[in-house]
């Protein structure tokens, strides 16, 4: 859209959405914090005083220094150092990269799989629907931590396996959400029209029905991303998630656990705080999206 049109300020659905979202200042703050966290994570190598996984730069002599201490290399360890002398401040932002990436990738895959299954269930109905939805019911009746633990027990450790486990835990939420809205959309006139035009099933499902089911999916996706990050951290903390070579926030917190009892709180505390801020920021955005995108609250 060109600048000339902008001066007229015509009302597009997107602009209405943005202005309604912005009515809640706390949600906007959550969004801003989230964007800052993502930027900080992506740009970590540019500003972090230390690459915590470059063994040449980590010195065991620096281990377990309290926040604010000077490292052997001369930079200040703002948040202290961990058991092998890594700078916690740097480790947090490198860890955030892994946590966010695992959360985002697993959510993207889970959303694609879940939406496809949900649409298939709603559009074709019958036995296919029963089979898919029974599976969804079975899975959602069990707590996600339990399902994730069982899946991890099946697959073993590793980034790809954790992502697979997170996808399998989450797809059911998307499937149920999409099926719910697709069942409503399927009966509408535009779908009948598309069918009369002789459009192929795939085109009707993905080209016509899917775009109209996206609003609730966006809400679920936001909440589920936070959930996935938290779940991955939990699994990593329990020692059945990511390996030490992929130190997400959960791994960092787990590493600090053994020093907790001797009062060296900072090794676990600060990575946990970073995790908490990330999750709260995403949840705030999700809460607001739920209000804005809910057709029942439409003014």
């Amino acid at each position, binding site marked *: 859209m060109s600048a000339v049109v902008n001066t007229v300020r015509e009302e597009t659905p997107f602009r209405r959405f943005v202005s309604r979202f912005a009515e809640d200042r706390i949600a906007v703050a959550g969004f801003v914090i989230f964007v800052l966290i993502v930027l900080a994570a992506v740009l970590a190598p540019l500003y972090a005083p230390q690459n915590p996984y470059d063994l040449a730069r980590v010195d065991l002599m620096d281990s377990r220094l309290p926040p604010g201490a000077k490292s052997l290399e001369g930079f200040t360890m703002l948040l202290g150092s961990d058991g092998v002398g890594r700078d916690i401040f740097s480790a947090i932002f490198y860890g955030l990269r892994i946590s966010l990436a695992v959360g985002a990738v697993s959510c993207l895959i889970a959303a694609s799989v879940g939406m496809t299954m949900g649409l298939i269930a709603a559009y074709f109905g019958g036995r296919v629907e029963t089979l898919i939805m029974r599976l969804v019911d079975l899975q959602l009746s069990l707590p996600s931590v339990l399902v994730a633990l*069982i899946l991890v027990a099946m697959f073993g450790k590793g980034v790809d396996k954790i992502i697979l486990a997170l996808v399998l835990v989450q797809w059911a939420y998307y499937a149920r959400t999409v099926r719910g809205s697709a069942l409503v959309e399927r009966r509408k006139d535009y779908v009948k029209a598309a069918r009369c035009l002789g459009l192929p099933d795939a085109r009707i499902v993905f080209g016509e029905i899917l775009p109209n089911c996206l609003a609730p999916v966006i809400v679920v996706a936001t909440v589920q991303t936070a959930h996935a990050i938290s779940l991955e951290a939990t699994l990593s903390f*329990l020692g059945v998630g990511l390996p030490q070579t992929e130190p997400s926030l959960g791994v960092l917190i787990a590493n600090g656990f053994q020093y907790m009892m001797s009062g060296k709180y900072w090794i676990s505390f600060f990575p*946990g705080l970073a995790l908490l801020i990330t999750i709260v920021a995403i949840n705030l955005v999700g809460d607001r999206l739920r209000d804005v995108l809910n057709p029942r609250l439409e003014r």
Partner: protein
Amino acid sequence: MFAFILRRAGQGLLVIAVMVVLVFFGVNVVGDPVWILVSPDMTQDQIAEVARSLGLDRPIQEQFFLFVGGILQGELGRSFVHGTPAIGLILERMPATLELALVALMLAIVVGIPLGLYAGLYPDSAPARGIMAVSILGFSLPTFWVGLMLIMVFSVMLGWLPATGRGPVGHFLGIPTSLVSWQGWVHILLPAINLALLKISLVIRLARAGAREAVLQDYVKFARAKGLGRGRIVGVHILKNIMIPIVTILGLEFGSLVAFSVVTETIFSWPGMGRLLLEAIQRLDRPVIVAYVIVVVCLFVVINLMVDIIYSLLDPRVRLSEAAT
């Protein structure tokens, strides 16, 4: 009513059967537990002997049929690591987990309902806003991190409460429990708070929503018109009505408390079945993993059935036979 229970029990058995098949084959396709159990200096023959003694040299379908045959005789396989029946290991640790989950549930009710009720009766007051902010935080906080913080503050910094173990275990009606001694209560407090936090947030939300709806109802207006005191209206009439959804959901959540106890038990070194599961996963002790899943799924099925029955008793408007159709 009887037909309803029978039908639900049948559905429950089906769920259990599906889970047994899924988990058995799922767990048995990864890794080779033999390599975790043998020492590096063993010969090939000795390794093969270990595999044979565990029954791992047979084809998977044969293992499965042996396993199913065992289930029918009340036997869920032998632990590879401990060499004792898996079900025995789990039942031995179950009281500790159930005790933790029960105390957490109690905490959720005792703390959550008054706070939620207050927030619902005075939704715009400052304390109510504070309560809601805390409950949102409670939903976002990762359980394991809260556990660490509880240890840091109450055990390390203040030194008030112990951070690990179960304390002295007494016996009540033959069941080992820490709830009979003061020391036991001191030990269970931190883990129970940790486990309860999520549920407290949930109860606050439920109680608040229920109370906000209830104060607008005619029976509250009528009670007020009749001249009843505020305490009696809130404590008897409103509380009774909002308890129905809370009891239902808390009943269903009990299962999730048991599942979440894996995390809490690890942090607080609580000797329950959650920690057993985690050890089993790390050491590829397949029979224990499978047995744990079967026990927990059974627990879920029983809890769901009980909640349905209690629900119908609490709310006479619900007829179970209708619900079943």
